[in-house]
Structures are given as structure tokens and as C-alpha cells.
């Protein structure tokens, strides 16, 4: 099993390259850790973890810089995922920030480890979620109280696209704009697949942009895997003060792994079979190899002089998480 240690993330952050390229490296290394976590746990939502990963990385590393020392600040930026089942990816990002320890993330779904859905008892987690539809309402409450108490900091909540079939979502879209709670940003991880089928075949969301705009929101849409485009949207959002804001981020379920990207899977299969569950040993090894070769190519293409996994392959190749050395 392969993990990428915290020190590599630190190293990448210090490289003299642009933020978008840094984010690409961090995302792929987090993908390695997420895969390993899910493999050890024997279960976990792999497809949505991969589709949301780039958004997590951009928001946590580059947009809001949530570091360990800020976790209790009243003025901190608050980010959480309403769908919650993408939490393996979020844990891996929290690890890459030094908030969680390696020992924590490798005990995913264990009784003394990390919960299968977000829980406040875990460092860096801001709300208990997982049951769909509640996140915007809760984020709205956080925003309202922040405004009332004069606490600074933004509030961003990620939702799924299938989640937009929940009625509470539309209650919250309506009340947020009416109550002038304009410091809220919602991002939809629009990966087009819910569980194993196309959202449009289960219940079509139709023109989501127009629908949300009709509720009094400012809506943007962009490629949810392009860091430069996500960055641009956030910069645009900063200027909009009179409306709550929503980003439809077009993503790919299983992004970054050939075998499980929905755009590829759905060409061959009727159903998407990577919503949850762990890869087999063979699949796991192939997936890890794919990510490593991608990172290596990117390093040589950018004429960089570092190797974030040479040591991982040699020293961190482990049979079980118990034998890992902990940073």
C-alpha cells in the first residue's frame, strides 16, 4: 500500500511554481491517500471522493488556508460538504494540511478512527452531514450567526447534484435570498451520476442555473477540475455582495482514474459501478500506478527537480496500516 506523507505536501507548497500546478500535485497525492484509505477500510465512496477532490484542494489549500491553528478561531472560514459521503477525500486533504495525522486517516471507518460520514468530533470537520439536503440550511444558520455576532470568515458548502432532488434544498434556496444571507457560497459537485445512474435518468434537474437564479441567487458555472477557472469564479464571487452565490462545478465522477471515470465507464456499462466500495488488489495497484506516472510526467514536463513518491515506494510500501511510521 502506498501513502504520500505530509512532508511532501509541505514541500510542494514551498515549490516556486504557480498555485494551479501546486494544486494539481496536491490533488493527485491526495487521490493516492484516499485510495489507500478506502482500500484499507474495505469500503467508502470512491467516485464522489474523486469528483470533489479538486474542489476540496482548491478551497482548503488556496482559497481559505485552513490550518491547524485557525481551527478554533471564531473568524475562521468554514467549509463543509453537505453530501458528506465524499469525506475520504476531505480527510485526505485535511491530512495534507497537517490537521489530521496519518494514523487517523488510515483508520477510516474503524471504531477508533474516522467516521464514514463527517462528525464534529474529528478535527477540521465543521458539521455533521451525510443525510442529504440539510447543508445549505445549516450553512445559512452559520452565516446568520456569524453576521449577528460580528465574526469574520466566509462559509462555503458543497452539495451533490442528486442532492438537488431533496425538497429541503429548495426551502433553503428560497429562505437564504429572502433573509439576505449573502455571505454564503454553495458549490454543486455536478458529476452527473447519482449512485449508479445518470441524474437525468433518475429525476432530471433540467436548467439548474435558471432554477437557482429564479430563487434570487447569483449563479456561475465552470469546469470543476480546472483550478484556474474555479479561482476566477471565487474572485468574481468576492465582488457580489447583494446575493447568495452558487457555483455549478462540472465534474467527472471518479476523476483522475481511467477505470472509474464515469465518462468512460458509462460508454461500456449501463450502470456506474464505482459509487461505493473498495477496489480489488489488482485494481488498486493499477490505479496507484496511473496516478504516479501522471505525477512523474508532470514533474518532467515542468522541469522540476523533486520526487514525492520515490521514498513512498521504497519505504512506505506496507502491508497493513499498523506498520506505518507516523509523522
Amino acid at each position: 500500500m502506498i501513502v504520500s506523507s505530509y512532508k511532501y505536501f509541505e514541500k510542494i507548497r514551498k515549490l516556486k511554481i504557480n498555485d494551479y500546478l501546486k494544486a494539481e500535485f496536491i490533488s493527485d497525492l491526495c487521490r493516492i491517500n484516499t485510495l489507500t484509505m478506502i482500500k484499507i477500510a474495505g469500503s467508502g465512496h470512491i467516485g464522489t471522493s474523486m469528483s470533489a477532490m479538486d474542489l476540496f484542494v482548491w478551497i482548503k489549500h488556496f482559497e481559505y488556508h485552513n490550518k491547524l491553528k485557525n481551527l478554533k478561531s471564531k473568524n475562521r472560514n468554514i467549509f463543509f460538504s453537505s453530501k458528506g459521503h465524499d469525506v475520504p477525500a476531505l480527510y485526505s486533504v485535511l491530512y495534507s494540511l497537517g490537521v489530521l495525522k496519518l494514523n487517523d486517516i488510515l483508520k477510516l471507518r474503524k471504531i477508533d478512527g474516522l467516521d464514514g460520514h463527517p462528525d464534529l468530533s474529528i478535527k477540521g470537520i465543521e458539521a455533521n452531514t451525510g443525510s442529504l439536503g440539510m447543508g445549505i440550511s445549516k450553512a445559512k444558520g452559520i452565516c446568520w450567526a456569524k453576521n449577528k455576532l460580528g465574526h469574520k470568515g466566509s462559509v462555503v458548502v458543497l452539495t451533490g447534484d442528486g442532492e438537488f432532488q431533496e425538497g429541503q434544498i429548495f426551502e433553503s434556496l428560497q429562505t437564504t435570498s429572502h433573509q439576505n444571507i449573502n455571505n454564503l457560497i454553495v458549490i454543486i459537485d455536478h458529476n452527473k451520476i447519482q449512485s449508479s445512474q445518470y441524474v437525468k435518468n433518475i429525476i432530471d434537474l433540467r436548467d439548474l442555473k435558471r432554477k437557482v437564479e429564479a430563487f434570487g441567487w447569483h449563479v456561475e458555472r465552470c469546469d470543476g477540475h480546472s483550478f484556474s477557472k474555479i479561482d476566477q469564479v471565487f474572485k468574481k464571487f468576492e465582488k457580489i455582495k447583494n446575493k447568495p452565490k452558487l457555483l455549478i462545478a462540472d465534474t467527472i465522477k471518479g476523476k483522475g482514474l481511467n477505470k472509474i471515470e464515469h465518462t468512460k465507464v458509462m460508454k461500456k456499462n449501463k450502470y456506474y459501478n464505482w459509487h461505493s466500495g473498495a477496489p480489488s488488489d489488482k485494481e488498486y495497484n493499477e490505479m496507484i500506478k496511473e496516478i504516479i506516472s501522471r505525477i512523474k510526467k508532470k514533474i518532467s514536463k515542468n522541469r522540476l527537480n523533486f520526487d514525492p513518491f520515490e521514498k513512498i515506494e521504497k519505504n512506505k510500501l506496507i502491508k497493513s496500516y499498523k506498520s506505518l511510521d507516523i509523522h
Partner: protein
Amino acid sequence: MQSEKKNWITNSLTESLIKFSKKNKNIVVLDADLSDDLNLKKFAKIFPNRFIQNGIAEQDMVSMAGGIALQGMLPVVNSFASFLTARANEQIYNNATENTKIIYLNLYAGLLPAGAGKSHQSLRDISLLNSIPNFRIFHPLNYIEVDQVLKHCIFKEKKNCAIRLSIGPPTKEILKLKTRINFKPGIGQEITKGKKVVIFSYGQYVLSEILKTVEILKIKNIFPTIVNMSTMNFFSTKWLKKIVNKHDYIFTIDDHSISGGLGDNILNELNKQKIIKNKNFFKIGIETFPECGTVEEVLKYHKLDSKSLYKTLISKIKNR
């Protein structure tokens, strides 16, 4: 007009809420457009920045309260008990798992008034909240006790609270009550001191019928102890043991479904403490969907009027 309602539970709740909100600046009130019975408009007028009108969107309101509580404030959430605790039950559960504190106002709790019918009468709210581990549920008897219960919930209680509120004017029997109400969490108050028979109940409507029943029972030389049990789901074991041991017949009468109400909770506690042995225990409550009608009609239909209660009680006591 409001001054005429001085001794209504609902009006008293709002007056107390205003009083306590002056002391505790963290209180925020959320409402799903059912503020008229409580006259929450008065609260909104005094604290416009601490009142959130959330419209008829209970799930959104409850989750929003969860977010507010995460920021360290104390949300007080209002809607009819039947809508609040059933429709938004999962949201209430989710908030509870975050171990914050929220006060839920279960307005229009119980069978009566019964004119609105089964969509509005709330006979399930105790059972719906009871299985959430960090919840305290209360049903104050009158305008004095509601102030005491609210004070406890705001300033003393660490867990989430639900306060069941009867709507409508107080009954004659409650107005005539001589006992000075002194609320203690987990401990009931003896309204009449009798022997052999003890009746645990709550809420102005059903307790009034029990008070009338006791008058008829006197003729048969039966003098029950009536306990106003305004705490629904946790009890002082010492107190419960003491009062149960003094009596042979134990009755619980719920203004709620017979399943999952006060009766079940007392029975469970008596069983757990092994004090049920050699006692005759009877649980009375509502066993069907609630009927629509006038107060008198519906009490009679559900056999909770004084005459029906008399018959039920005398049959149980006699047969033993």
C-alpha cells in the same frame, strides 16, 4: 386583548421568553409562520434582530437553528408540534448529534383543542423525540409552570429541550387549582394527596378531567394522589420509588399516543428500578387516530372525559 390572555400558557411563554432574552443575549427565535398563538410578534418587535421568520419551511428552519447553535447561540424554534417534530425529525436528530443545545417549542401539543383534526393534533411528538439520547421533554401545566420550565431550559439544562405547549385558555379546574406550582425537573408535583391510588398525568386538558374524576371517586371512598408530571422522559429515581411505594395502584394518563408517551417512560423506569413488583400498573392514553370535534366530544370519544375515566379507574380498582 393580550392582557386578558395573561393566564394562558402560550402568552406566558412569550412574556417569559422576552424576560429571559434580556438576560441571555444569545437567544434567537426561529418561527415557521405559526407565531400568532404565541404572540411572537411581540418578541419580534422588541428583538427584531433576534427573530427569524423562516416561513412554512420546518426542515430548513431546524437545520438553520443547528447552524446558529454551532456558532454558540441558543436557538428557540417554534412550530406546531405535529409539524416540527415529525416533518423535521431527521433535522432535529442531526442537530442533536452535534451536541449543541436547541430549545424546541412543541406548540399545540396533545389532543386538544380538537377542531383542527388529526393533521394538527400532536400525539406522537414525545415518542419522536424520546429516542434521541440527549433530549429533555416537558409539558408545563399552566402559565406559572411554563415560566419555570423555560427558565430551567434556558439557564440550567445542558441537553436539547422540547417544551410541549397546550394552546387555548386555561380550564376552570386549572384556574381553581390551589397548589402552588413549583417545577422541579424529573420530579412530579402532588396536586392532591391521597392513598392507595396514584395517577401520573400532565397538561391542562387531561389533568382537568382527572381533577373532575377525583370528585366523583370521593363518593366511592377512593382518594387518589394526582401527580402533575411535567417532565416527560427522565425521573428522579428516589422520588419515583418513594411515591410509587406509597400506593398500590399506579395509573398513567397520557395526552399523547399510548405508545411512547409518559406512561411508557414511567413503566420502563419502574421496571428498571424493580419497583413494579406487587403493584397494579395501568397505562391510559390515545389508542387511535385523534378524532375531530369539540373538546367535550373528543374527550368522550377517546374515553378521557371525567365520566369515562371514572369508569375505567373504578373497574380496575374494583377488580383487584
